């Protein structure tokens, strides 16, 4: 790939999604953008680059952004955050919201929906305790294609074996040929919307629990700070934010503070895990 083409693509991606591509990731750009070039009947990346320069076709720019920002996901990814959710976060916030009896949960950069549906499976297990509660799970992703996939709740055989215990598959999924679809009941617990984390988040409303895992790693420092600060505006003081294992708020923003003793969990300061035990 020509250096000027790489620079043009990486500037475009930075502007539209916050994704930072260093030159050692040229192979990634090539392997992800070749299918886009083919879809648009172009010979290769040079033609793709020329077209982007001369003709600002929104649909093409969107395809390029989607191809670069789509990432593999799995059910109950890393397991521990979900144990934390079930044993600590959910009970504590239920106590705090006992009068209101409502909770809103956000799966930010939700990809094909596995995180959101993992949460709906946990909430389904806890249904007896949650009778009379209004619980909303909202998944957002920059990719329209991913949002559509998440809404459909249809997964390949490979995908349903990534992190999903077999008993959960039997309990919550219906088989259709070589695909598996999550039950309508669980699909109704979650909604999905196309949304850019770099944009205005206020219309999404307030969230008590935010999962934004393995997203910040793709951003540079100023973008990380901007995203964390706009997420903070959508959360109450005692809300909690989940980040990925390799991510932190330290040195990026002082809005969020680590929840003591709970790895990967952050709050604006009003959530305490004191006395908690997570097996």
């Amino acid at each position, binding site marked *: 790939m020509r250096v000027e083409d790489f620079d043009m693509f990486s500037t475009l991606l930075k502007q539209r999604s916050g994704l930072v591509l260093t030159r050692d990731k040229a192979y990634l750009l090539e392997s992800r953008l070749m299918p886009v070039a083919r879809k648009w009947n172009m010979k290769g990346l040079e033609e793709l680059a020329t077209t982007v320069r001369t003709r600002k076709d929104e649909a093409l720019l969107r395809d390029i952004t989607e191809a670069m920002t789509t990432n593999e996901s799995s059910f109950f990814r890393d397991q521990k955050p979900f144990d934390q959710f079930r044993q600590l976060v959910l009970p504590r916030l239920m106590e705090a919201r006992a009068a209101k009896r409502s909770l809103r949960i956000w799966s930010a950069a939700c990809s094909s929906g596995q995180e959101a549906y993992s949460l709906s499976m946990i909430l389904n297990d806890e249904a007896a305790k949650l009778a009379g509660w209004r619980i909303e799970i909202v998944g957002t992703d920059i990719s329209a294609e991913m949002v559509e996939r998440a809404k459909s709740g249809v997964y390949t055989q490979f995908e349903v*074996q*990534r*992190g999903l215990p077999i008993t959960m598959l039997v309990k919550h999924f219906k088989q259709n040929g070589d695909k598996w679809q999550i039950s309508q009941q669980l699909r109704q617990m979650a909604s999905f919307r196309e949304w850019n984390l770099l944009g205005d988040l206020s219309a999404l409303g307030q969230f008590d629990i935010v999962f934004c895992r393995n997203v910040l790693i793709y951003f540079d420092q100023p973008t990380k700070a901007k995203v964390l600060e706009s997420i903070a505006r959508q959360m109450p003081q005692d809300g909690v934010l989940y980040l990925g294992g390799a991510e932190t708020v330290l040195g990026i923003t002082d809005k969020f503070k680590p929840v003591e003793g709970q790895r990967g969990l952050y709050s604006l300061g009003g959530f305490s895990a004191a006395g908690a035990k997570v097996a």
Partner: protein
Amino acid sequence: MKSCLVVDDSRVVRKVARKILEELNFACSEAEDGKQAMEACAAQMPDAILLDWNMPVMNGIEFLRRLRKMSGGETPKVVFCTTENDLAHIQEALSAGANEYIMKPFDSDIIQTKFAQVGLL
């Protein structure tokens, strides 16, 4: 070190599975069918069994039913690993006492997470 018995009539599958399991720190032994697996379990009960369904001599589901009736046969964690990928087979395996179920083809990631889920890792 935990032990795992790999039961599959395909030498290639046994080899692939063995390599993945050894990387996860299991001491592996192999059996080509359910009958050989019964003999291996009678000699020494493994901690885990990765079990194919369709095999000559004795198939996986029959082996599992007999295993669960053996003395000490309720302790090994049994993970099916088969091309049978429909709900009916999965339910039959679970009611016969399987702990997890892998639909072939598999990769190391799937084996690792399934083994972790049943408490082997």
